[in-house]
């Protein structure tokens, strides 16, 4: 059936009217959704341009001798609902302890190893300047915040574990099963994670937003963990790093870690 010119024009006109009408109806449907809603950073939030942490390993050793019971790990893992899984291959950790030779495998100096034989090294995500985990994440679940924190949006993580392969520090853990079974008590103010999601330390972004220091920093009775803004010359971390000798883990890789270990 051939279409007549007249009919064709009529149809075109109708289509136009229809499109306009549906656009108007669409506007009606979404009306009331657009409102004057505003978002802001809370005024009490701690503000920084480059958050960093300095860890005084000697003080840490002192604390452990006095029996601090590794408060930093305990408090962090409680507040963030990090489960304790006995199986080493499937464990989840945000902050953990290791020996010098594992933390700094590139430091082959025998004497250094001897000096630090019994010194505990608290390890956590280094919140790298140039984080390889962010580069490989296909969903932008892991991304870099303006204040230097390497942030995770757990909602977006698809569990591909590229980030775990990319991180040279083993800072990331994968949830092989529902972690809730391994939580003895929970912090009702913070979520857990679910099976198939990667997690790591987020520098307590949720506490910074409330004007509080990271949980581990606050928990350490020896004040062995110091937190602050590297971009601010007068911050405690900047001052310490100007005066004392600090190591960063595998800095030669160019990741630019923001966690420093005082070794003098």
């Amino acid at each position, binding site marked *: 059936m051939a279409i007549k010119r007249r009919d064709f024009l009529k149809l075109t006109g109708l289509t136009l009217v229809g499109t306009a009408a549906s656009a108007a109806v669409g506007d009606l449907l979404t009306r*009331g*959704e657009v*409102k*004057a*809603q*505003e*978002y*802001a*950073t*809370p005024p009490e*939030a701690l503000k920084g341009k480059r958050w960093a942490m300095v860890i005084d390993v000697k003080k840490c050793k002192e604390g452990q001798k006095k029996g601090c019971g590794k408060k930093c790990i305990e408090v962090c893992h409680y507040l963030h*609902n990090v489960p304790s899984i006995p199986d080493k291959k499937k464990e989840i950790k945000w902050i953990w302890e290791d020996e010098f030779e594992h933390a700094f495998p590139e430091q082959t100096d025998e004497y250094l190893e001897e000096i630090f034989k019994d010194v505990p090294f608290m390890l956590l995500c280094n919140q790298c300047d140039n984080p390889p985990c962010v580069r490989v994440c296909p969903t932008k679940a892991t*991304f870099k*915040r*303006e*204040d230097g924190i390497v*942030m995770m*949006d*757990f*909602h977006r993580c698809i569990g591909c574990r590229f980030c775990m392969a990319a991180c040279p520090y083993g800072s990331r853990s994968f949830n092989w099963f529902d972690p809730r079974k391994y*939580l003895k*008590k*929970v912090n*009702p*103010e*913070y*979520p*857990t*994670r*679910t099976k198939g*999601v990667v997690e790591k330390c987020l520098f307590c*972004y*949720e506490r910074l*937003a409330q004007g509080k220091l990271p949980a581990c920093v606050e928990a350490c009775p020896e004040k062995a963990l110091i937190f602050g803004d590297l971009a601010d010359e007068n911050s405690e971390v900047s001052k310490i790093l100007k005066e004392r000798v600090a190591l960063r883990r595998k800095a030669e890789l160019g990741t630019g870690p923001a966690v420093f270990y005082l070794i003098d």
Partner: protein
Amino acid sequence: MYNAEKVIPFIIILIIFFTIPMWLNFGRLEAIPQPELPKEEKKCVESKEYMRAYHMKLLDNWRKKAIRENQHLYTASNGKNYTISLQRTCMKCHTNKEKFCDKCHNFVITHPDCWDCHIAPEVAKKWQ
């Protein structure tokens, strides 16, 4: 139309068949879910109508702003400020997910996965 005397009744039968749930529940009020509302607090973050229709969008925006843009403070249309947090703000008034969220979600057979990670208040209580 060919076979109109067969096709049309069949179409009618089909329509009736697919709308059976509607006819069965016609005028039955108890079928409408009744989520339990907070007793102390009368006003939600936004108006009731808005929350009913768009709470999922609001929550999604909250997530994006808080997690991705570090903006943890929400100023509602009436000027009131709220901390962006499902567990620390929403569930402080709606103290029971089963009696609130689930009521409608089950009714419309939608199962959002919020609670795979976020801890419902009643679940947290049982845990301790």
